[in-house]
């Protein structure tokens, strides 16, 4: 028979937890000595205090050791990562730096040419984004039409989405641009190549974004639609004034995701022979026997993307501050 044990002190106060774990962790932390030393000192202190019987102080020291170990991990990893990158770019007399950051990058003429090219990218994606916003919403609304009579419309909208999401963007670009150019349809006859490219990008990204819209609209609780309808608003009015405005606020992050994708995919139109930023990068690389043109193009894309991410966050924050309870 085992005697039942009634502790006089609560379990949490009876022992010093994980003394050995902290010792091992703090020794490993010495790889980053700035904080590792503190970790080790505290863990040694903890075991000393434990053997002296001062459990409470030992637990405090143990806790400090644990915290310093985590600091070693966090800051140590960053320092080692930076050191690794520096090494990568400096070994072999800076071979990698010379490839990516050749003198061309400080050459004003090269930047002028790149910016002229990038202006085309900007024009293409701004127009495409505006069209995508409208086109994708239309597709999403068609796909969500209620009633049996609208089944064919829903089917067509779904078929479009499925189709254009499954074909690679570059292939759609080829099919649309060369196809429409060759067919010479009455309405499309006077478009130039850049316009065809916009049409192709709108078709591809419209399919993605319509799914984002659809998810957003469906995430609005049906009681909102019921409330709107109960006031006598028609289905269309309810969508226009109640459901869609709420959905749009919710989908800003995934919408930005797709827009960034679209912006980067404007580089695909260089494959059609348009001298946008990637085309010019290739030209600079070939004419100056360098690789830095690509770096320059990459920097341009980074420069426009990061502000957009921050702007979207700011927008969402502002809306929450306005409409949500403190």
């Amino acid at each position, binding site marked *: 028979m085992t005697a039942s044990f009634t502790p006089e002190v609560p379990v949490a106060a009876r022992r010093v937890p994980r003394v050995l774990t902290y010792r091992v962790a703090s020794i490993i932390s010495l790889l980053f000595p700035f904080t590792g030393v503190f970790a080790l000192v505290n863990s040694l202190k903890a075991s000393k205090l434990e053997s002296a019987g001062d459990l409470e102080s030992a637990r405090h020291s143990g806790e400090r050791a644990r915290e310093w170990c985590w600091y070693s991990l966090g800051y140590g990893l960053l320092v080692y990562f930076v050191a690794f990158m520096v090494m990568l770019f400096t070994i072999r007399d800076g071979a990698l730096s010379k490839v990516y950051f050749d003198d061309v990058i400080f050459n004003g003429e090269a930047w002028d040419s790149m910016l002229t090219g990038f202006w085309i990218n900007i024009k293409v994606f701004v127009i495409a984004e505006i069209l995508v916003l409208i086109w994708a919403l239309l597709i999403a609304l068609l796909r969500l039409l209620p009633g049996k009579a609208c089944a064919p419309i829903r089917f067509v909208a779904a078929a479009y989405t499925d189709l254009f999401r499954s074909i690679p963007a570059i292939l759609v670009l080829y099919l649309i641009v060369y196809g429409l150019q060759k067919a010479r349809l009455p309405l499309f006859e006077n478009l130039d190549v850049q316009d065809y490219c916009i049409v192709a990008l709108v078709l591809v990204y419209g399919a993605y974004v319509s799914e984002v819209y659809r998810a957003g609209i469906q995430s609005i609780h049906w009681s909102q639609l019921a*409330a709107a309808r*109960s*006031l006598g*608003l028609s289905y269309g009015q309810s969508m226009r*004034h109640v459901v869609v*405005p*709420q959905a749009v606020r919710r989908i800003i992050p995934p919408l930005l995701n797709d827009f960034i994708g679209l912006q980067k995919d404007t580089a695909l139109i260089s494959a059609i022979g348009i001298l946008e930023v990637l085309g010019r990068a290739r030209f600079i690389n070939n004419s100056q026997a360098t690789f830095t043109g690509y770096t320059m193009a990459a920097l341009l894309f980074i420069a426009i993307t990061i502000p957009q991410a921050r702007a979207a966050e700011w927008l969402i924050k502002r809306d929450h501050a306005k409409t949500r*309870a403190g």
Partner: protein
Amino acid sequence: MTFLQMQGVHKYFGDNHVLRGIDLDVERHQVICLIGASGCGKSTLLRCINALEPISEGVIRIDGNRVSGTGVDLNDLRADVGIVFQSFNLFPHKTVLQNITLAPIKVLKHSRGDARDRAMQLLQRVGLDDKADEYPDRLSGGQQQRVAIVRAMAMDPRVLLLDEITSALDPELVAEVLNIVRDLASDGMTIVMATHEMGFAKEVSSKVCFVHEGVIHEEGPPEQIFNDPQQERTQAFLKRIVDAGRL
């Protein structure tokens, strides 16, 4: 003539037979209280009146005119029949004032200024005119529900449906909402309400209907239903309410 009349109304949700032959007569200026256990069909009954749920069988008439079945303009019907929900259902992206004026502007084609004046008048009546430019999420539950009542009233409905409008509120907020209903009733508004507030039902209603398994099991003036119920089921239901200390 009976103002609002339901005759033999049935409602199925798939195989679920929710309303099993509802007969209900409502006269002008009456306050009808529907009582009964959760799931008995009170809410569905209300939602059928303004066609948020289409009925499966039977007829609903307002002023003698059939308003159920095909060929009825539901938007017109709903502009006449206001409803307030248990969970308020205010539009969170619009201010209090925009919530109230949306339908008068878009459905009744009132001018922005007229709609605004009328809304402010109603808000003042419920003591919320200082909240006109707030967003709903910044209001308490009781305040939100008062706004929802004003939103329904701004359409000048001929009958107001209240679907357990105090069930989602903290106890101390119930009174502020019920006071407004009492006020509307004394102004002669025709009201059909589903409620668990038995004391309130006893006080304001012209007629109490006990709904059980999709039919109106017993109806009568509140004194009769609460003090001298005739049906066994009604007695059992009220006994449970009394035992729970709610009456």
